[in-house]
């Protein structure tokens, strides 16, 4: 049973809604409309090459995509990239966060330089990776083998993941550093007094306190990683079965001009992202920053 709201609370709520309204309207215009439009497109046979043959076909596009091996290959690749990169980024990001948190000398410089990869436009970074891994133009390709690593599936996927990790670990570290700041020094000192080792202090004190921050960081990165596009577009353009679902959607939309199939893929990507977010929020109890119980009045 909820207690009835007081007059003051009700008025506060109304004001809250009013203040939110403009932002909500903008959100509807720029996100909700395109989403509903792609859902509408996904129910049609609509190919720009054949403008006269546009028709409503229900869920047929979904059947086509979901029974297609290219889609599932791309889905597997996307999942692999997501799981591997987020896991590696979490470990590396935690290390980086602790270093940045603990640095006393040149703190600003350390933090700024650690963030450089994240500040570089992904496409630009991806091009430098591509040249680095291409025989003749790069310094990395001939380091490991005589071949062209970007033309073979396993090595190409490895390079894509490496580029992703290099790029977004700083972001992970940034979020985790915010979490580290939540850990009270007194708590660590007390644990230390009780004889806890450094590892024990980390696992038994810091991690539990940081849990909300870690989950938020994981959620953000997982959603981001699942939409991986730029690195693949530049590094392999999806050759040798290295396409992600976003690449596949792009190819069907922009190259194939097939708005029906392409929109279907976009909607499926959207749904997958929604499911991932749901799992994080409901099962792991991830909270958006500021919405935890302590923050509530």
């Amino acid at each position, binding site marked *: 049973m909820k207690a009835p709201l007081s007059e003051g609370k009700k008025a506060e709520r109304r004001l809250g809604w009013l203040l939110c309204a403009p932002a909500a309207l903008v959100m509807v215009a720029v996100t909700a409309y395109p989403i509903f439009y792609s859902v509408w497109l996904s129910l049609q046979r609509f190919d720009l090459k054949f403008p006269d043959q546009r028709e409503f076909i229900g869920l047929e596009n979904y059947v*086509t995509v979901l029974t297609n091996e290219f889609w599932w290959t791309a889905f597997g690749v996307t999942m692999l990239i997501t799981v591997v990169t987020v896991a590696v980024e979490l470990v590396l990001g935690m290390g980086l966060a602790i270093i940045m948190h603990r640095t006393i000398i040149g703190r600003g410089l350390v933090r700024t330089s650690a963030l450089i990869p994240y500040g570089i436009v992904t496409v630009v970074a991806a091009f430098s990776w591509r040249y680095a891994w291409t025989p003749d133009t790069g310094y990395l390709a001939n380091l490991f083998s005589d071949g062209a690593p970007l033309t073979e599936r396993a090595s190409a996927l490895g390079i894509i993941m490496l580029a992703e990790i290099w790029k977004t670990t700083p972001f992970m570290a940034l979020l985790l550093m915010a979490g580290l700041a939540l850990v009270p020094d007194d708590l660590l000192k007390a644990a230390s007094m009780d004889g806890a080792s450094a590892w024990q202090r980390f696992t038994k004190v810091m991690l539990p306190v940081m849990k909300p921050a870690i989950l938020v960081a994981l959620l953000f990165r997982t959603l981001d990683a699942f939409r991986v596009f730029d690195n693949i577009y530049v590094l392999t353009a999806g050759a040798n079965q290295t396409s992600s679902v976003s690449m596949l959607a792009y*190819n069907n939309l922009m*190259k194939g001009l097939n708005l029906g199939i392409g929109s279907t893929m976009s909607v499926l990507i959207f749904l997958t992202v929604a499911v991932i977010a749901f799992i994080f929020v409901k099962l792991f109890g991830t909270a958006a920053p500021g919405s935890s119980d302590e923050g509530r009045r």
Partner: protein
Amino acid sequence: MLLPLAACGGGDGGVPTINLYYPPEQNLQTVIDNCNEQAQGRYRIEYRVLPRGADDQRVQMVRRLAAGDRGMDVLGLDVTWTQEFASANWILPWTGDARAEVERGTLAGPLESARYEDELFGAPKNTNVQLLWYRTDLVEQPPETWDDMIAQAQRLKEQGQPYQVLTMGAQYEGLVAFYNTLVASAGGQILNEDGTEAVFDEGAVRALEVLQRFATAGVTSASFTNALEDDVRLAFQSGNGAFQLNWPFVYPALQEGAPELADKVGWARYPGVDAGQPSRVTIGGVNLAVSRFSDHPDEAFEAALCIRDAENQKFSAINDGVPPTIESIYADPEMTEAYPMKDEILAELRDGATRPLTPAYQNVSTVLSVTLSPPSAIRPQETADELRRSVQDALESKGVLPG
């Protein structure tokens, strides 16, 4: 105050600007300058250079045309895109005198690539066709069939000589063109006449057999399945190959890059599939089309006609190496020096093979390149059955394009 206005062009009273979107071609600006001079102020062509990659060129044009962009007037379309752009209602048909002028003296193959549903949608500006390049010091008689060429290469291999047959085998358009040549040479068909149905008949199956046999005969280079045009050229220039199947651009490059080898390189017609049956080789090239959204269609047609007229085509052939589409140019004495292989090119062009003519070519090509790659894994009959299904889906824009 007048200058900035004039630079905008297209404004009231000003000289209409005709924006030509065309792939990079080194000396095309000279052609455009000629045409601007000829126009005497009726219009002014501006050369907007498209990206180098064919996919990037197409995506840029498609995206802008789908949005009804009025800033594009004349478009340089790869021969495989004309039907798609016509079907999507993005380009205007050539009619009346302009059409008659385009058709006059133009080779049948390139002209065929510019037609869609009995109308002409493009003016062939240049064409292209691959030849067989071979080492005259190793090969006595250029092979007339693939079987012959494979046997010759194997013999050279046994003798410890350079033996490789170098051509494009990566998963991309080049592999599709390769297969298309084999199908046409075997008298087969990929699609029916209307381009509405996937056929993959007996000839198409035999083409698959040849492709598979070639890939597994031990005569290709190790990087066959990764090789694009330029990789093939470089491999041949480095002396590993006895044969090279490639576009004519390799010839000037060879003279510049490996002059001592150039003296030992001859050319011949692309090998066929059956003895006594000359090959039919896939033609490439560019068609000029006028955008439906152009504000100055009349001037745009006129500009396109000028760019592709006989004099300018000859200029481009000699200076940029692109083979002309007007047959009479080949007889011009000036061509002999720039194009010593012009007789072979013309012979192949006279019965050249177009790639499947359908608005869905991009999809068909993607499906083909994925299924044919790697060629060593082809199982002719099964692969043909698989292709018949997936290409049919691609034609009906039902299937998923592989990424």
